[in-house]
């Protein structure tokens, strides 16, 4: 083994400066300077879609509107992901600082932390931190209020437009894009929706500067990122790692030396088999999400895939046909092949269906079913049949 995963300790390092020091220092600079810094850092959204954060905030700042909103997306529902929970418990100040810096840059006066109902037990502590923030915002004359909005149990609400629908008191059904929330979001006003980790990372970029931040990672991939590691691992938990690492190095560090496959990016990501560990780089491109679930050779990949498909069939919002019917048909078809009711080559038809869903589904949920489906069916075909 040549390259060990480099652990980083930025995001979870204990507070080393006075409360909201980073925020106070940042707003002494010019807005142009800070936005340029964020863009140069190469920071991308940490929710899964990976849109460049500095650029998003720049666009939001340019929107001409007296009312703008900021939403911190803490509807962490992707199976195998739990980093946002840890962030809100351990370093909420870094998250709130990121929101406040975003508010200062874009001119938003109201922000929400959209937290999933499953995490309701985190709210009392979070409220205390918001009170602390209030005092500091007053000191620096920052007109920005933060409220908590509680979800009600729906995976699809992690999708930004579904989240907004839900905040408007409706079913969490994704909207057509464009218009993007940045121009027409919550109550029709420009709205910046970012993941919890994105806000925390943005405040870290402001603290250390783009130059320092970019020293992390490899030549092509800058920065660090949180990985939620679970399954057949000796070190389950949230780990901050530099970007650009191969899956092989990752598995050497975190696997149980019997790793058969790793699901990267959660259920909506890809399942990578052992033979491809050498070439797969985690945390980028196809594998942007945080969830990394490790399976050892005792696991049935058929059972794993059935579990995923049951999840999808349940969480599909039902609004568009390819996703609503597709998820059910993939599950039924897979079971039929296993039982011998359908021939093995029926799997090819199911793969085609999954591809069709990718092209025709309205939102990321239906579009990404094919990622795990195709990667598991293709790489573990025998397990699907026998």
């Amino acid at each position, binding site marked *: 083994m040549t390259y060990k995963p480099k652990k980083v300790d930025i995001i979870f390092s204990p507070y080393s400066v006075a409360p909201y020091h980073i925020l106070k220092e940042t707003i002494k600079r010019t807005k142009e300077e800070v936005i340029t810094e964020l863009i140069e850092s190469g920071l991308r959204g940490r929710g899964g879609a990976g849109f460049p954060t500095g650029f998003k905030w720049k666009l939001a700042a340019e929107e001409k509107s007296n009312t703008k909103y900021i939403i911190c997306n803490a509807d962490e529902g992707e199976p195998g992901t739990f980093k946002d929970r840890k962030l809100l418990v351990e370093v909420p100040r870094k998250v709130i600082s990121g929101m406040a810096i975003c508010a200062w840059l874009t001119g938003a006066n109201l922000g929400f932390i959209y937290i999933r109902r499953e995490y309701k037990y985190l709210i009392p502590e979070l409220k205390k931190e918001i009170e602390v923030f209030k005092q500091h915002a007053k000191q620096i004359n920052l007109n920005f209020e933060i409220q908590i909005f509680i979800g009600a149990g729906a995976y699809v609400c992690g999708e930004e437009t579904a989240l907004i629908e839900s905040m408007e008191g409706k079913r969490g059904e994704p909207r057509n894009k464009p218009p993007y929330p940045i121009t027409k979001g919550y109550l029709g006003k420009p709205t910046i929706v970012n993941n919890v980790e994105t806000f925390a990372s943005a405040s870290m970029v402001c603290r250390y500067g783009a130059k320092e931040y970019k020293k992390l990672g490899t030549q092509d991939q800058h920065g660090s990122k949180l990985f939620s590691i*679970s399954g057949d691992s000796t070190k389950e938990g949230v780990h901050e790692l530099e970007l650009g690492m191969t899956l092989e190095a990752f598995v050497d560090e975190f696997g149980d030396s019997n790793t058969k496959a790793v699901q990267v990016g959660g259920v909506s990501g890809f399942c990578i088999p052992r033979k491809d560990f050498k070439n797969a780089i985690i945390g980028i491109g196809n594998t942007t999400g945080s969830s990394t679930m490790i399976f050892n050779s005792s696991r049935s990949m058929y059972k794993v895939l059935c579990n995923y498909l049951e*999840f999808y069939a349940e969480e599909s919002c039902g609004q568009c046909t390819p996703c609503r019917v597709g998820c059910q048909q993939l599950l039924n078809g897979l079971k039929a092949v296993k039982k011998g009711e359908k021939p093995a080559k029926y799997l090819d038809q199911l793969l085609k269906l999954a591809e069709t869903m990718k092209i025709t589904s309205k939102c990321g949920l239906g579009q990404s079913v094919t990622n795990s489906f195709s990667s598991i069916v293709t790489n573990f075909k025998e397990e699907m049949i026998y």
Partner: protein
Amino acid sequence: MVKETDLILELAEKFGKERKSLLPILNGIIDKNNYLSKDAMLEVARVLEISAAEVYGTASFYSFMETNETGKYVVRVCKSIICDMKGKEEILNTIESVLKLKIGETSQDKRFTLLETNCLGLCAEGPSMLINDNCYTQLSEQKVREILQNYIKHDI
């Protein structure tokens, strides 16, 4: 059980009588009464001046918004893949035998409802479950028995 009309009025005053207050109001009812009765949904529709179908349609979208009467304690066992790998099935069997309930059922004395749920974000500490809004992790058969006994005996 809190009187619903008073509760709904109080919630509507707090959050505002607008459509955007629908989820906070419904969540507020769930906090107190654990489920949304037909009367509660009709009352919310009346107060917010929207159709009752809109209220029910919205509520039925979300897994925490039960529209059937539930017990005082709703047990939600995580069924996502990692908790499943860590022995969720044994935990579920234990709960079923202690509470004498199957998934989806509510006890006759209206104290317990047993449900499954998707990922609770507690994978590294699985198997896991929620009882109302409290989370319990690293469950073993013995641990889950103790937790349930505590609820049965002490009416937490």
